[in-house]
């Protein structure tokens, strides 16, 4: 049995004296598709930042691929997709290919991007179905296409673990379905997916396992068991149908 890719043990953290997340423990194994849901301000993004090593936990420990997250060096093994950053940096002229190429930067270090790197970039662009727009400016594309480009960046780095923080915010409904189809397909190819998502319904339909968070963990288990539980109503303070829109 290999080490879990993510191991979170009794983690608490707060930006002030008040904890944002408290007593969180769970593990994510290779090839899992895990969705994290919870109301606004429940600590979902903070938990992701802790897992990615961007913050030091006040209490507990987090391991990535068997190493402490803060000092984890094999950064090309982790792909990261957040809300559309181009929405903020919309004036920056940059092509899809240039963005995807960033996935090779941790690997290349201070060296040049070589032929192998370029090949990986081309393959990643093709995998997400963006070969025809590879040399177009990223801000000229739709929100859904831009998010695909960020997925391609993670693929270019040959990541084993894909971490996504509310990736569909601001993306049109049609593109959202295609985006989740792409995640399904990557997960079928053994890519581990850890998805923070405001759309509980999408998580229930797509993920194999759900973590329900509101400062502490209300639920950790298979999706089917989650829908049968009352964890969501306890975390959100309402019935599951109200949250998922049923």
């Amino acid at each position, binding site marked *: 049995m290999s080490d879990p890719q993510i191991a979170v043990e009794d983690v608490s953290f707060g930006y002030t004296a008040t904890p944002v997340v408290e007593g969180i423990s769970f593990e994510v194994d290779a090839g899992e598709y895990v969705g994290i849901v919870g109301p606004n301000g429940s600590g979902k993004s903070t938990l992701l930042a802790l897992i*990615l*090593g*961007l913050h030091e936990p006040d209490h507990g420990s987090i391991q990535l*691929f*068997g*190493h402490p997250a803060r000092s984890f*060096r*094999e*950064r*090309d093994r*982790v792909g*990261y997709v*957040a809300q559309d*950053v181009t929405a903020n*940096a919309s*004036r*920056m*002229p*940059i*092509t899809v*290919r*240039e*963005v995807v190429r*960033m996935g090779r*930067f*941790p690997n*290349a*270090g*201070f060296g040049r*991007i070589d032929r192998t790197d370029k090949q990986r970039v081309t393959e990643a662009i093709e995998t997400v179905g963006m070969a025809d727009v590879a*040399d*177009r*400016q990223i801000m000229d594309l739709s929100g859904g296409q831009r998010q695909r480009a*960020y997925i391609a*960046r993670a693929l270019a*780095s040959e990541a084993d673990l894909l*971490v996504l923080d509310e990736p569909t915010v601001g993306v049109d409904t049609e593109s959202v379905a295609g985006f989740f189809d792409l995640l399904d397909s990557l997960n079928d190819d053994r890519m581990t997916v850890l998805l923070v998502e405001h759309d509980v319904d999408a998580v229930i339909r797509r993920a194999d396992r759900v973590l329900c968070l509101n400062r502490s963990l209300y639920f950790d288990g298979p999706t089917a068991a989650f829908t049968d539980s009352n964890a969501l109503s306890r975390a959100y303070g309402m019935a599951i149908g109200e949250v998922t829109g049923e």
Partner: protein
Amino acid sequence: MIAAVAAALTIALDVVGAALAVALDVVGAALAVALDVVGTIPGQSNPISGVLFGIVEAWNDAIERVAIELGIEMLTYGFMQQAFLVGILIAIMAPLIGTFLVHRQLALIGDALAHTAFAGVAIGLLVNTMVSVSISPYLTAVVVAMIAALAIELISETTGAYNDVSMAIVLSTGFALGAVLISLNTGGLTVSVDQYLFGNLSTVSKSNASVLIGLFVVIVAVVTLTYKQLLYVTFDETAARVAGINVPWYNRIMTMLTAMVVVGAMQIMGVILVAAMLVVPVAAATQLARGFREALVGSIILAEIAVLVGISLSYTYETTAGGTIVLVAVGLYVLAVAAGKR
């Protein structure tokens, strides 16, 4: 297998660390050369300053031959030969840094550092008067601008202030300090302040041109070495951190390089207008470029046009060099907006 990969990565990181150390050594060595060139008789102290001075002389000889061959009178003067050399180098290094600054929404940092460089000039003039030494005010300007660059980062990091707030604080403090020191500095020195405020073609000496070549080499070398990291940090700071890039470290590199460009460009642009070279060609190229690399190359081409045309017009019509260059650059920007897709 994982242990082997980890070991290989550890070695790779050591190599990266060593490369960074070399880069810092290069910066230190170049600054030492700059200090040497400015503080002593050019070409007399060490082989590197001799080489830099030799490059300036070789450039002057080459331009002189071209001037005689083509009958271009303005290029027969030494100060114009040096002005064109300095201008051409500035038009490469300013957009090279400016492209990253503009797209990080730090366009005004050049302005802030230029105004603190003015305080550095004032300190240099004051020290020269009080201690009877001959230190180039550009040297003190480099030192003060670099301290100011760190101060901007420090204020933002320690107080959580927005970058524009820390820039405004440093800008005001620098210019105020410069103004106070200049007013203390009696003995006719105020007469020479204009050249620092507005730039002056005729004051571009061989020594100053040599220093600029040193700064140019450092800036181009560091940007070439760290281009990928700077681009990642510019585009998406959080993703860059996740990718293991030390974002604060690269922010500091960027501000230090900005300080070098600002002081280098001050000679012909002047404190008031130096920031324009960091921003206007980049803004123009952004209108036309599709990708980042295209924007970077485009901004250098536009900056070269602005500098070459601006210096020529400045000489012909006896106008201030910095102002003329900026007006040409703004003209190019207007044309780019008209021709651009946005």
